Structure formats: structure tokens, C-alpha cells
């Protein structure tokens, strides 16, 4: 469980693709407030 993200802990996100062909990771999100909405198309 040591790699489980928790409230109060820093969040690390690997580079993930986006629908428009771009890719974002933690560094790309740094400096702004983020709502990470996790959703599935089923």
C-alpha cells in the first residue's frame, strides 16, 4: 500500500495521453489547481 495516493501526500502522475493527442503528467499540472475526475465509459 506504500504507493497508494493519500490525502495530504504529493501526487505523482506518469505521462498519459489525451484525446486530442497531447500528453500530461504531474509536472504539466504543477502550478495550477486540478480537479482530477476519474470516469469510465461504461
Amino acid at each position: 500500500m506504500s504507493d497508494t495516493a493519500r490525502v495530504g501526500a504529493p501526487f505523482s502522475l506518469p505521462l498519459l495521453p489525451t484525446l486530442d493527442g497531447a500528453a500530461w503528467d504531474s509536472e504539466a499540472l504543477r502550478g495550477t489547481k486540478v480537479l482530477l475526475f476519474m470516469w469510465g465509459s461504461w
Partner: protein
Amino acid sequence: MIDEQGILSRRFDVKVVPNGVLLDEAGTIRWAKFGGFSIDNPEDVAVVERFLAGEDLEPSPQRDPPYVLGPLERELVATKLRLGRVLLDAGRTAEAVAAWREALRLDPENFLIRKQIWVAEHPERFFPTIDFPWQQEQLAAERARELAEGICGPDGCPVPAALMGNASPARGAAG
């Protein structure tokens, strides 16, 4: 972002969606709601607005997982999910589903895995529209089968024996 490998679900140890997580400018997790987060829910919207305004946030909703997998089981589930994705990408759907069913056997309350299997086996139930009544029927049938196979017990899933004795029940443990 598209997370075909389930990296986020593994990192947050989630078994359902939708979820909402708030990250501050430094990349620190400030609030999270797992299961049932919705921008149509005024309470969830209010939390986001307070966050944007720089106000203090109420504690995150308490997580109440039905069980906690041990490190080995978590790694096995992740490995089988990755294997299934490779097989699916190679057009070997039946083998992909078999790998995902092995993962689901270890983590039977994980609806991300269960629905992934359903989509692969019954795409007509998801495209062009999602058949939610069918999902309820399918879940009931699968639960009955898991009960019969000893994966689940009358108090929930999974029974410890189904996890090779290495999981840590989070609640409802019978000692």
C-alpha cells in the same frame, strides 16, 4: 487523459468510478471522494468552489473498502490487467478476458475490471448506448456464480481462501 493501463486506479486503489480528487498548485492531494463524485451533486460542487477560493476544506469522505489486498495480490492483479490489455491489443479477446477474470477472482469487488470484461465480451450492451438493466442482471448472475465457486461468501467478497490467505480484510473479518 486516457488511462488504458489503469495506472490511476491502481495508484488510488479504487474499485469504482466516478471519483474526484483535488490537487493543489504544489501537486499535493487536498481532498478526494471515491465513488459517486458528480458535478451534478451540489455538495461536491461546493467543495470544488471552496477549494478554488482557497478556503479550508472539510475532511474527505471516509473510504470504506470491503477488503484490502496485500502487496502480492495487488501486483498480481495489476500484472494480469496489463497482460489482458496486451492480448486485447493483439486481437486475442478471449485470452484477454481470461486474464482479466483471473484478476477479478483476486479482486471481486473491483468494478473497473468487471466492466472491462463486460465491454470486451458484450460490446453490444455498451455501444451505442449503455444497457444498465443488463448490467444489473449480469452482476446478479456473476455474484451467484462467485458464491457457488467459493470466491465470495455470504458476508461479501472475497473470502480469504480465495486470496491464498494473503489479503487483509478491512472489515467483517471472522477471525
